[in-house]
């Protein structure tokens, strides 16, 4: 040991290891981890794999890979427990969640150490960030359990939830999944990542400790195959997944048509935008909390740094200087900033991407650190000279290295920020509040941090836009992912639409009136179908009502293009949108008789009622346009946390075959009231009702492109829309098979799909045909964090 006098000269930190004896003993007593099923820890039946401490390469224990039988047993246990769990008074569920929160707190040091040994993250982060957030999540959701009956009177639990979580925040992701599910009255089958099963099994023991009823929480360990077994199990009502976008796509396809509710929290390539008027030192420290947090293994990491050109040079100088003070090494050492990546495989993947970045011409600046001889350590750094076209600018590195770009103007920053498939988070650095909030509004991201990064709270919804997934975790929005509207009696399947008739000249005679020229409605103009084809529409007793244009893929393309150009609609005031909807109702009312007659000709039994209900609905959504807005969430002190309801952009709407006026407008009205532009496919059997609406729309001051209407083969058009990468969300009211087709086809850009699963709705009944559920599905929540103080 050097003398104190000498240490006074070097002023090094010296080692500061966190003791891990208790955690090591706990692991040693569990050489083979099994599963937690029906309230008991059970030995695994199938194969097992080693659980490795990525910082030392030591094998800690082994973990079983869940088999079909084990998944089956777990789902059965969850099913058996669910009704009783949901029937408990909210207060009783709240007590259980409160007990979980308390016990996590009582074991915080043990859980922190265990997490470090399993994952390689630093003890500081596990101790100061992960575990406190875990406890906070259970506390918050104990509250939702307590308040469920009064806060969500029209909702009920979904049933059994399958939940698949990643290895980067093992216990935190478990908490994010389990807490809301349990609060809402669901039971769960959760699969931890096979790389990091330890804290989940410790949590299982906590469940036993607090006397959680058997079967409420089930944990089946395993890898991707076990995950697929859970995702594919027919006994699962809801699947929640956090992980890579690629696996998200697989799960989207696998669950298509299954009726399972799905939420996906996927990858990101989140922009970190530094304006010339930012506090540069603060922004540099922000980078530390962004890409150098959790070894960069963070889905919402600010991994694309955009810096305004005028300050790029000093900013990079400061960033290089800060990089040089990062400490990388033993994650149990309390002075380390960066621990080990989760595995050597992950390290190799990261290093390969970094090599690719260098090969493509970017300059990699890396911390000059001596890495420990063993363990999956990776020196942090950042690239300069990266261009948007570079692989490293587009691909999630999931390691401690950011790319950088410079920009000239705020507009260019917004364009560059949104030049990504992803839309998870964004971090904005500027001391100009106008600029910062403008950028927060422009950026496509589910979470925006202004002059901060990686702030989390159980009350603040977290989740992505675009290919970062859909669904939110935390807060009221997160609870809704685990609830369904209370069912309204029997469900009847929707009858198939009338087949497309007479695409070639038909056999039937038409009435003597003036010929109806029903075209498509695209970009505010009536347009012929690109294919130059029409089909015959028949009404009551087979009478020919006319021909409707037979739209095809190219018409879908044109309509989406037109909708994409109508960007102004989302930006006008909600009051403006309300006015347009009121005006629409007024114009429809003036032509009520005409629509009633046309509906009568289709065979509608109560045509006047349908027209009247449509007018009322327009009023209702006009009323909602400026009322269904966001809120302010109580998170941390001196922070304003806003939850904004943002429109998706372009939505695809597949109207039901029944109620050709009201059904169509029940979808169009809420979507446009919330600021979306829509491409709607009219009732296949009775499209001529929709085509009469063109003139109503034109006279109602609706900007061109906000509503585009197509007629033709419902499912052909639905497939084109579902596959279209520029359609951000879709509602489908068709058949059961069509639902499966649309859900599978949506995997391309992972647009959220809302369908009625091919069951009929009574559109005239407001309880079924309108409501908050429609409005909620027409928006995505953007959570904006604004810390304040001067």
């Amino acid at each position, binding site marked *: 040991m050097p003398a*104190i006098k000498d*240490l006074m000269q070097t002023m*090094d930190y*010296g080692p500061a290891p966190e003791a891990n004896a208790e955690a090591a003993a706990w692991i040693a007593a569990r050489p083979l981890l099994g599963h937690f099923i029906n309230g008991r820890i059970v030995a695994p039946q199938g194969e097992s794999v080693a659980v490795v401490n990525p910082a030392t390469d030591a094998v800690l224990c082994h973990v079983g890979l869940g088999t079909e039988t084990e998944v089956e047993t777990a789902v059965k246990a969850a099913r058996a427990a669910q009704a009783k769990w949901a029937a408990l008074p909210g207060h009783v569920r709240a007590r259980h969640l409160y007990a979980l929160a308390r016990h996590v707190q009582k074991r915080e040091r043990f859980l922190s150490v265990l997490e470090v040994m399993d994952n390689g993250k630093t003890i500081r982060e596990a101790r100061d960030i992960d575990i406190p957030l875990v406890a906070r999540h259970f506390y918050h959701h104990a509250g939702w359990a307590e308040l469920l009956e009064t806060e969500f009177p029209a909702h009920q639990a979904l049933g059994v939830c399958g939940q698949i979580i990643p290895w980067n925040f093992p216990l935190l992701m478990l908490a994010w999944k389990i807490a809301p599910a349990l609060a809402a009255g669901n039971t769960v089958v959760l699969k931890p990542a096979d790389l990091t099963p330890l804290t989940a099994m410790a949590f299982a023991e906590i469940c036993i400790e607090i006397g959680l009823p058997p079967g409420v929480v089930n944990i089946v360990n395993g890898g991707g195959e076990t995950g697929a077994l859970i995702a594919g199990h027919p006994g699962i009502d809801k699947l929640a997944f956090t992980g890579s976008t690629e696996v998200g796509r697989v799960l989207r396809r696998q669950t298509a048509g299954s009726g399972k509710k799905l939420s996906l929290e996927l990858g990101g390539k989140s922009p970190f935008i530094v304006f010339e008027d930012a506090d540069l030192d*603060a922004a540099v420290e922000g980078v530390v909390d962004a890409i150098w947090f959790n070894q960069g293994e963070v889905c919402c990491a600010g991994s694309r740094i955009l810096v305004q050109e005028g300050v790029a040079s000093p900013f990079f100088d400061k960033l290089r200087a800060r990089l040089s003070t990062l400490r990388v090494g033993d994650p149990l050492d309390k002075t380390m900033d960066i621990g080990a990546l989760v595995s050597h495989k992950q390290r190799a993947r990261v290093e390969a991407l970094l090599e690719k970045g260098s090969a493509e011409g970017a300059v990699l600046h890396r911390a000059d650190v001596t890495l420990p001889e063993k363990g999956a350590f990776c020196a942090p750094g950042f690239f300069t000279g990266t261009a948007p076209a570079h692989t490293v600018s587009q691909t999630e590195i999931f390691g401690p290295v950011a790319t950088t770009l410079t920009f000239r103007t705020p507009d260019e920053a917004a364009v560059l920020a949104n030049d990504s498939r992803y839309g998870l988070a964004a971090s904005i650095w500027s*001391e100009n509040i106008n600029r910062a909030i403008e950028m927060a509004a422009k950026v496509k991201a589910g979470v925006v941090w202004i002059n901060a990064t990686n702030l989390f709270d159980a009350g603040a919804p977290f989740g992505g836009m675009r290919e970062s997934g859909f669904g939110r975790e935390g807060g009221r929005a997160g609870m809704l992912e685990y609830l369904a509207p209370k069912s309204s009696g029997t469900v009847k399947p929707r009858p198939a639409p009338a087949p497309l008739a007479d695409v070639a000249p038909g056999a039937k005679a038409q009435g003597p009136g003036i010929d109806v020229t029903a075209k498509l409605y695209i970009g505010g103009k009536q347009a012929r179908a690109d294919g130059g084809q029409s089909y015959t529409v028949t009404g009551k007793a087979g009478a020919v009502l006319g021909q409707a244009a037979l739209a095809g893929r190219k018409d879908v393309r044109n309509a989406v293009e037109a909708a994409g150009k109508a960007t102004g609609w989302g930006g006008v005031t909600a009051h403006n949108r309300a006015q347009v909807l009121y005006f629409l109702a007024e114009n429809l009312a003036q032509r009520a008789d005409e629509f009633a007659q046309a509906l009568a000709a289709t065979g509608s039994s109560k045509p006047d009622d349908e027209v009247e209900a449509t007018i009322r609905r327009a009023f209702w959504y006009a009323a909602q346009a400026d009322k269904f807005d966001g809120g302010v969430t109580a998170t941390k002190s001196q922070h304003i946390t806003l939850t904004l309801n943002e429109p998706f952009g372009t939505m695809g709407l597949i109207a039901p075959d029944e109620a050709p006026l009201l059904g169509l407008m029940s979808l169009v009205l809420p979507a446009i009231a919330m600021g979306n532009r829509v491409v709607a496919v009219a009732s296949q059997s009775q499209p001529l009702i929709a085509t009469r609406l063109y003139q109503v729309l034109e006279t109602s001051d609706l900007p061109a492109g906000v509503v585009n209407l197509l007629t033709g083969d419902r499912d052909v058009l639905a497939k084109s829309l579902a596959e279209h990468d520029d359609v951000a969300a879709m509602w489908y009211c068709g058949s059961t098979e069509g639902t499966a087709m649309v859900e599978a086809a949506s995997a391309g850009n992972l647009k959220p799909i809302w369908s009625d699963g091919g069951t009929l709705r009574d559109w005239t009944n407001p309880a079924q045909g309108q409501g908050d559920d429609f409005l909620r599905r027409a928006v995505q929540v953007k959570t904006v964090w604004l810390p304040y103080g001067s």
Partner: protein
Amino acid sequence: MMDQGAFPRMTGTPFTPDWFDTVQINTPAAERRAASLPTRRTVKKDYQAAWLARAITCIDLTTLAGDDTPGRVQRLCAKARAPLRADLAQALGLEGITVGAVCVYPTMVPHAVKALEGSGIPVASVATGFPAGLTPLPLRLAEIRYAVDQGAAEIDIVITREHALTGNWSALYDEIAQMRAACGAAHMKAILATGDLKTLTNVYRASMVAMQAGADFIKTSTGKEDVNATLPVSLTMVRALRDFGARTGQMVGFKPAGGLKTAKDAMNWLILMKEEVGTRWMLPDLFRIGASSMLGDIERQLEHHVTGRYSAANRHALA
């Protein structure tokens, strides 16, 4: 081994508002960084003892009270010469350790100089109408010259808060430059009284002006404001001196004062210095801690390090 080399004395620069007048400090971000510093770093065992010993060498052992007397100053100086009980100093191998300086009012300077004769410990004097700084400028300058004449090697001046609060930066510059001239060979520490400046942006700007005007050290507080040295304020000042250094190559010292009472405080501020400006800024020529009671707590911690038993205040000599 860290570079302990001498460096040229601060000369300051012409008044250059470009360096600060558009700078904005983000307070929540500064607070987050300040809060995470002590959680990101810790120092244990022998290293901790070494750091605490280093802190002792950086202390400006201070008495600035209306009831100061020659006797009180003498007692303080005796403590400055022997900040650690002899047996502890010996056990730690730190015989001969002293504090950084003794800091007193101008009229106490001759008593301190006498009491510290031969020790090599400099006497620092507050001046310029401390703590409010609102006496006429000629009197304030005269006070500096008086303290220097009496043997003070370091002068802790206070700035005119009015100039900072009203954004009259050129007036502030001129005044501090005159004070620096009056100091002559004595090193000048500019007290910004950050508790009065309120915003971190003001703190940064005032720091930059003081450095441009030639302050050898920038210092947080008189100890008499409502809020004295805090980590966010210190972070802002240290970053300012880092920016100043990057622009000019000149090295400026930093002195937090007021409110630092515990060994833990000493560790936190040393960590701040190491992280933000590096180990060179952990030596007394660039880092001082203005404190009176902190030394006692450090002694107790060091006794614990030596004996393994928690210590009591009455086992250590009073300052």
